[in-house]
């Protein structure tokens, strides 16, 4: 089981929408597809949490931490959407440029993404997902349990 909405969660969608907790990786192409397809569904209230496996992609953890640094300046979803729209640019210079484009204080962004607080946040989400049974990115949870049907529909179905 994973926890329901927390006060520090990243949430978007209507307050009375169907709650979907998405554990995802910014460097994972399946996660980008799932993001696009989930965005097409009306009435979904989405929670984003990190499933950043350090061995999966060399930039998985770094980009997750950068997203949390952007969140500290109120730009989590803008950062989220921008990275998923352009996953080929996730090295440090790309992240600095993105932070600047989003109007962030780049020096603060750079310090925050290397902070222990941000590292612990990403680690917390990832550990929680794995210990609740997540075995791939992305993993969707509904009612606290992994929802394979939603994964198959959003990720595995050809369109």
């Amino acid at each position, binding site marked *: 089981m994973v926890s329901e909405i927390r006060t520090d969660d990243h949430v978007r969608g209507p307050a009375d929408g169907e709650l979907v907790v998405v554990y995802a990786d910014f460097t994972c192409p399946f996660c980008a597809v799932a993001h696009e397809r989930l965005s097409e569904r009306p009435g979904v209230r989405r929670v984003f949490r990190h499933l950043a*496996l*350090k*061995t*999966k992609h060399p930039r998985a953890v770094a980009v997750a931490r950068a997203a949390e640094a952007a969140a500290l300046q109120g730009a989590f979803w803008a950062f989220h959407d921008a990275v998923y729209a352009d996953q080929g640019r996730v090295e440090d210079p790309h992240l600095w440029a993105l932070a600047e484009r989003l109007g962030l204080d780049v020096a603060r962004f750079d310090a925050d993404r290397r902070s222990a607080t941000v590292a612990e946040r990403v680690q917390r989400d*990832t*550990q929680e997902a*794995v*210990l*609740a*049974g*997540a*075995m*791939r990115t992305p993993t969707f949870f509904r009612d606290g*349990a*992994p929802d*394979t*049907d939603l*994964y*198959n529909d959003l990720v*595995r179905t*050809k369109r």
Partner: protein
Amino acid sequence: MSDHGAPPQAGSHRFALPAGTPAPEFSLATEDGGTFTQDDLRGQTTVLVFYPFAFSPVCTDQLQVYEEVLPEFERRGAKLYGVSTDATWSQAAFKQQLGISIPQLSDFEPKGAASRALGAYFEPAGMTNRAIVVFGPDATVLWSYVADSPGDLPGANLILDALDAAEDEERAA
């Protein structure tokens, strides 16, 4: 492309060997050219993670996810090993590419002999099944699992729950 099945749930799975079964004789090849046998199970809890093939995408996910929570296994005194019928050289390359630390054991020659003895061989495809066998420090089976399909991935939580349950039983005994 086939769909992924529903995630396995605790208590509703097939098992490779019944709990309490003493380890049969078996021999697997280690990465450094040595052997790993039933005698190496003694002294600590051992989790053998059988997977079909090195470099297949699903296996990649499985070992990378387990790697993420290795401290949870260590906290319970358990040591993980990956087991497949790939040659040690292939397993070493696989491990290196994944960037994982989980040691690999090869059941290459005679192919699948150890996996068959441990109830973890998938005869229809001539490969190790998606299976897990957990041995206690006395080399008897604590828990085991065989996937309904080799594409189904057992979550780390299933193994950790089994380790916790075994410890609870031991305390209660």
